[in-house]
């Protein structure tokens, strides 16, 4: 038993020190990095939101200039969506998908490292714009013609256009990696109908990313061609069409809501049954619901454009499709609630965040179909009601589950428990703070307050609600601060977590906390949806090397078939490599060069990137050396 662990450690453990910090391909280190980096962007984007709430607390304030305010709301949206929500969920996926499916790494470890570095650099690239006071000013939706050079000269919009293309490379590589990992690397016996729901959600999301992102990339390539090379895709005066941007943007933009929410719903379907002490009810329906959202989500984008004057027939079609998307969400909502009813709930901190999620996401889900009703949408779109709605969906649907996931999985990642009382304090502050901040926005919207205004006049009935909302935002921020303190204290003096502090059912809890570099001493044979509940001896067997293949000859894991997860192959995995970082640096140089229109620098970046890719491809003989 010890011998196996030692042997695997010598194969899988990366050399300590700065070098390995830059060359690591371990999905757990990369996953933690994604989570930590994305959390920093969450805090920054949260501070941007606080700044806006300070400005809007009272009518007619001038804490920020209109230009600064426009930069703030743009960077708040862009950061929350592209630099926080998507990457942090990708981080959980990176860390936990291989553990949940009994694999030793992601399918393409170096591509995984590359994806992280690209995300990190793209995040720096976009955030740098705010530091120099040239952040984009056209919102995350970046409508043309305002985003064209005539109305927005300067680099601001280019930081957006190029930054979005840049970060999209990271999401795309990540998505491809998840698809292959989930299809080909599940432990033997984990047939597709036994996959944990979080894994299903990540898989669906990955497909949605692969199909949705190209539209956004194309939109921004055309935008940059217009801005930098004198093209006229969006310019009416030369035969272009500004509505083209809206279609391309929302064909991505609406599925993106599900790209953010689906993995979070997967987190809920993972955590909620553990603390209800029973498997989720109607598993097949929940899976179908997940996949259906991923598909139907592509047919609803026009509901963002109901006020643009499109023909009525088109409006009715997209109205119906938008209402339809409620049903797969409804399936999941009732599956969760009925699971709680039939179970025996345990009120842990992660479970509190799940309950907070249900309440909040439910409200967001109830205001959602209202926007599918065309006349109401035409009245209320672009008002604060929309701001309320999508924060209930995105904060409710993603941020509450993300906090649940942090509280649930941090013990696995750090090996230490967090403080229950601080955790509960954090939950109540976040929950109450959220409701006080965002519920009044429904009312502001109904009272006619438009979005994206940096100030407003008094006497319109909006004052009291804005003040309430601003106060709520400070309570919410205090809750996030309580979490950060809790996390810090748990690292310093948290109690040891043990392998499975929650008595959970999925494979990541079969191994030690934090997990060893090789994850599993032996790759388990899975025979049910809740392996640890059905096979209590499994952790022992894994550790003894008797659960399945040990594969201690090199960097190896088991390859299995797509549907039934029958053993097919032993996959050799690469080890540490400097090339992903090199390639990402090359890309960073290219994007900086494009930003300042410096062709020579771009060529230099291309050279660096070619060196990176060549080294990467050259390195394949090296896979066993670690």
């Amino acid at each position, binding site marked *: 038993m010890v011998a196996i662990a030692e042997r695997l450690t010598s194969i899988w453990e990366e050399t300590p020190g700065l070098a390995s910090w830059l060359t690591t391909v371990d999905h757990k280190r990369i996953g933690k990095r994604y989570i930590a980096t994305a959390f920093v962007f969450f805090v920054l984007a949260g501070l941007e939101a606080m700044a806006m709430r300070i400005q809007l607390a009272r009518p007619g304030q001038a804490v920020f200039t209109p230009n600064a305010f426009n930069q703030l709301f743009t960077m708040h949206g862009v950061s929350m969506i592209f630099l926080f929500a998507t990457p942090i969920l990708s981080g959980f996926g990176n860390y936990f998908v291989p553990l949940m499916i009994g694999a030793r790494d992601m399918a393409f470890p170096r591509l995984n490292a590359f994806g992280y570095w690209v995300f990190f650099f793209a995040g720096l690239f976009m955030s740098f714009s705010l530091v120099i006071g040239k952040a984009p000013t056209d919102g995350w939706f970046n409508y043309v013609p305002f985003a064209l050079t005539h109305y927005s000269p300067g680099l601001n919009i280019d930081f957006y256009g190029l930054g979005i293309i840049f970060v999209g490379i990271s999401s795309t590589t990540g998505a491809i990696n998840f698809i292959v990992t989930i299809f080909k690397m599940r432990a033997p016996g984990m047939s597709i109908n036994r996959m944990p729901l979080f894994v299903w959600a990540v898989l669906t999301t990955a497909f949605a990313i692969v199909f949705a992102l190209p539209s956004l990339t194309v939109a921004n390539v055309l935008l940059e061609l217009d801005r930098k090379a004198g093209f006229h895709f969006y310019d009416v005066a030369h035969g272009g069409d500004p509505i083209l941007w809206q279609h391309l943007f929302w064909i991505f933009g609406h599925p993106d809501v599900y790209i953010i929410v689906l993995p979070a719903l997967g987190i809920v379907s993972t955590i909620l049954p553990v603390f209800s002490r029973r498997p989720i009810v109607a598993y097949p329906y929940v899976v179908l619901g997940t996949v259906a959202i991923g598909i139907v989500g592509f047919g609803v984008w026009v509901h963002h454009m109901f006020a643009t004057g499109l023909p009525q027939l088109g409006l009715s079609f997209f109205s119906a499709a938008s209402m339809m998307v409620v049903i797969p969400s409804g399936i999941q909502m009732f599956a969760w609630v*009925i699971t709680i009813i039939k179970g025996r709930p345990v009120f842990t901190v992660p479970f509190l965040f799940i309950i907070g999620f249900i309440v909040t996401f439910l409200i967001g889900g109830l205001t959602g179909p209202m926007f599918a009703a065309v006349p109401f949408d035409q009245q209320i779109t672009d008002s604060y009601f929309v701001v309320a709605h999508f924060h209930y969906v995105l904060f409710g649907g993603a941020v509450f589950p993300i906090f649940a996931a942090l509280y649930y999985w941090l013990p696995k990642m750090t090996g230490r428990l967090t403080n229950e009382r601080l955790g509960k304090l954090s939950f109540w502050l976040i929950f109450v703070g959220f409701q006080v901040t965002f519920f009044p926005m429904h009312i502001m919207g*109904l*009272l006619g307050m438009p979005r994206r205004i940096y100030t407003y006049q008094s006497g319109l009935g909006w004052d009291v609600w804005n003040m309430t909302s601003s106060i709520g935002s400070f309570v919410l921020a205090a809750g996030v601060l309580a979490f950060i303190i809790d996390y810090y204290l748990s690292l310093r003096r948290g109690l040891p977590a043990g392998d499975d502090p929650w008595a959970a059912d999925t494979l990541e809890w079969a191994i030690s906390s934090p997990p060893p570099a090789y994850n599993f001493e032996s790759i388990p044979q899975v025979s049910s949806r809740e392996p640890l509940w059905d096979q209590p001896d499994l952790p022992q067997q894994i550790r003894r090397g008797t659960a399945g293949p040990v594969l201690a000859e090199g960097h190896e894991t088991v390859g299995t078939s797509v549907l039934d997860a029958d053993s097919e192959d032993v996959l050799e995995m690469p080890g540490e490599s400097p090339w992903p970082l090199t390639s990402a640096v090359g890309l960073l140089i290219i994007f900086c060069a494009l930003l300042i229109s410096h062709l020579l620098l771009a060529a230099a970046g291309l050279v660096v990137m070619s060196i990176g890719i060549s080294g990467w491809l050259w390195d394949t003989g090296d896979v066993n050396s670690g």
Partner: protein
Amino acid sequence: MRRSRALLLVVAAAAAALLPACSSGSPSTLQPRGPAAQRIDGLWWFMFWIALGVFAVVIGMLLFGLFRRRKSGESVARGGGERAVVLLGIVAPAIILTTLFVVSLRDLNALSAPAKSDAMTVSVIGHDWWWEVRYPQRHVVTANEIHIPTGTQVLLHLSTGDVIHSFWVPQLSEKTDMIPGKTNRMLLEADRPGIYRGQCAEFCGLEHARMSFLVIAEPPSQFQTWLAGESQPIGSVTGAAAQGKRVFLTSTCVSCHTIQGTNADATDGPDLTHFGSRRTIAANSVANTPGNLAAWIEDPQGIKPGALMPPAVVEPRQLQALVTFLEGLK
């Protein structure tokens, strides 16, 4: 227990806010004053009560699930629950959503019915950051104020001079975007006389926040009088006003503004022919008073940072005359 109290508070707050529909100056969609807004208001309350019902059912189930007494030895079943999920998660939503779809389609049809034959046409053109308003039949051009006769359909032709804007008067109608290269149509109608606040609803740059306007609904006869007056060029002026007119015509004002009856005919900025009769300055940013007007002419950025109007370089005496002249343009 704390949870349910918090919930109760939220619901109570919502009810308190929505039912009295707030102060009278509010451009509230819940105080509709036109047939379109009226219809949408009905749709909203229909959806609100459904949503509240669903909310109550789900939260009731959740609370039951969380707090129901469990016998000490009660075993937890591993399976079951599918039928309830299908019934509550698929069948019930399908029925509710179909109903909602049919109702909303009925309203959509009503709202997009063609204009009546006696409808009056008004063109509104969005600009950074003000509204140009044209009455084509009478060649009347004004800005930031739309006079309409009550009880009459007004067919709006909505377009833009620069970026995308969106025309929204919450108490009267739904909103419609103004998109380059396109003229969108929409009906505006007010049931009773009143001043209804409108505001740009599509982000359009620095002063999106101060791109507001007023719809002034008057009885038809009063409206006709107003329209007739607006179609007249300015008359002759004397004294300080005459001096102000000279200042106007010899300064940079003329490179952007029109005053009918003079040779100022530029169209980059609002038409000022009947400026003195308007209620506000700078797209409803401040009230139209001589003091505000002087401040606006001297330093537009002080009132509306980002506004495209340059400060006028005039001496204090000239400024006073200019204000007298403009305020006299009734």
